[in-house]
Structures are given as C-alpha cells and as structure tokens.
C-alpha cells in the first residue's frame, strides 16, 4: 500500500520566485526570493532554489535552502508529512527528499531529528543520521503498519491513562 499518493508524481511541478537566473550551458536554474515549489500535494518553501537539469528532462534535482526550508506533503491515508532543514533536496526521478542541517521530519506522533535525514518515498523508508560522525544511519521503516502500530500504542496509552484516572477517583 503506497504511503505517498502516486498521483502527486504525475503532476506538473510549478515553481514561483521573485527572480530567476538561468545558465543554459550549465543546464542550471537559480531561483531567489520567496521560492515556492508545488507538485500535487507536495509543497516546498525556501529562500533559494537551484534546479539542476544535467541528468536530462524529468530527472531534475531541486535543492532548496532556507532558514529553514520547509516541505509538506499529504500521505495516501490523508495525514500530512512535514519536514524542515537548512537544505532540502528533492530528487524527482528517485522520489527522495534529503534533509541536511537541523533536519526534522514530522508525521503525526512521529518526529525524527538529525543532521541529515533521507526520506525515500518509493521504498517508504526514512534514513536518519543523527550526527555527522556516526556513519551508521538509523533506519526507520516509515511504512503504514509502523504508523498504524504507533497510533495503536498511542491510543492504548491514552486509554490506560483514562482508566487509571477513573480508578483514582
């Protein structure tokens, strides 16, 4: 079961900014000032955006930088996944979002923090690397069952807390 709605990836990408600089020889576009990218429910906001087109049409890499840059997207189950970081790199063809610098990924009760986080929408995995030195990234499977399990545990905890409250009275 997909966690990100596939239809998002079939939408055109729209990019707004105050000004733009393009270098056709280097196949790079620079966007500056109030940069916003939208693709279906995916939204990235940043101060600057670099779009690298050297890999060919449809394989662009979008590198957003900001204080912080932010990302938000709707999951297939309707809930939202959010992220913030100094740099957010969206590799369209691989369907991955890489966060670097004060990286935070939030989804309902789930919050992951680290220096760098890679959110692989295709493999439905989150690779969180808490600090630069540790080269063994912690892998969190960001799949629907884990989300469901988390919701259940949270629900159970809430119920236990309520019951306890009743017993005390």
């Amino acid at each position, binding site marked *: 079961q997909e966690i990100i709605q596939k239809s998002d*990836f*079939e*939408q*055109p*990408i*729209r*990019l*707004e*900014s*105050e*000004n*733009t*600089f*393009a*270098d*056709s*020889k280097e*196949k790079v*576009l620079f*966007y500056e000032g109030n940069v916003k990218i939208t693709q279906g429910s995916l939204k990235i906001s940043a101060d600057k955006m670099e779009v690298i*087109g050297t890999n060919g*049409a*449809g394989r*662009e890499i979008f590198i957003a930088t900001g204080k912080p840059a932010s990302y938000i997207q709707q999951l297939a189950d309707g809930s939202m996944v959010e992220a913030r970081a100094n740099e957010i790199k969206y590799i369209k063809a691989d369907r991955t979002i890489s966060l670097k610098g004060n990286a935070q990924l939030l989804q309902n009760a789930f919050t992951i923090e680290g220096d760098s986080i890679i959110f692989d929408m295709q493999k439905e995995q989150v690779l969180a690397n808490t600090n630069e030195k540790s080269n063994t990234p912690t892998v969190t499977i960001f799949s629907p069952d884990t989300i469901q399990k988390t919701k259940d545990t949270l629900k159970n905890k809430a119920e236990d807390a309520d019951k306890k409250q009743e017993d005390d009275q």
Partner: protein
Amino acid sequence: MNRLALSIILIFSAALALYVPIWMEEEEQVEVSDKDAALVPNYQALNLRSKIFDKDGQLTHQVSAAKMEHYDLLEYVNFEQPEYTIYLAETGESWQLVASEGTFYDNNRLELASDVVISSQQTNDYIQTISTDYISFSLDTQELSSDQPVAISGSNFTINSIGFSANLETQQYELKKHVETEYLPTR
C-alpha cells in the same frame, strides 16, 4: 472650301478650346524638404534574402523578409516578416529570430516586434525557444532584452517572466520579474 474641310476645322478648334487650359495649367511643383526626404525610403526590396559577412569573411547573420525599406539618411531599415539567423563566431552555434515587424539601425541594433520567436538551432540546447512581443538585440554584444511578458522554454519546462535580459553567446538569462516556471511531468 467644301463642307468636309469646314467640319474638320470645327472639330479641331473645339478640341483646341477644350485642351488648351489644361496644358496651360502650371504643373504643381511639390516642394520636398530635406526632412521629408529622409522619410521616403531610398529603396525597397520584396522577398529579400541577404547574407552579411564580417571582415574575415565569416558569415555573421543572414536575413530574409517579405518586405524591406532602406532609409539611408536615418541609417534605418524596416522589415515586414523578418527572419534573422545569427551565427555565433565563438561557439559556432546559430539562433533564428523571426517576427511580424523589425527595424535595424546604427548598423548593429535589431528591434523585433509582435509574435517574436527566437529559437536555438542546436537540438540539445537546454533552453530552446524564447517567445515574446518585443525584443531588442545587439549584433555586436549578442545581448538580448525585453520589457514585455516572455516565455522561455526547454524540452520539458517553460519559464514565464515580465521582461528579461540575456546573452545569446554565453546563454545566461536574468529574469527580474519571474512569474512562474512549470516542469511538465515526463511519461
């Protein structure tokens, strides 16, 4: 004098009486001042085709047009349906500039207006076409600029902006009032 001769004389004198005033009328001399002379094209060409070479014999640009009017005094050429092809010496690349109207002056500056389309003649260029309603182009510096809405597109994207400046040779573009860029989904 028989009747025949008499009637010939009569007809002849009637004709004379009719035409003499017209002949006598002074041909109206149209006084053309220098200033007006400049506004009259020195020569016109229809379905023009011309190639322009630099001093080393390199083809720098060629132009074809449905109609061309050349004004010597003003150093000014007016085109209808101009089609310019610019050959860039440094890179060996070429670009085509077409429009409904164009003017070429100071032997260097080209202004194109309405339905302007500038297209790269290299298939793998990242930026392929520029469409707008006004362009100013300098043949010496290869600088392009416009203050009108412009669409700059590549194989899977289109950048919309109000005005821009660019250099055809370095292929660098600056869009001060970017509106929106759209990347089409690839199948």
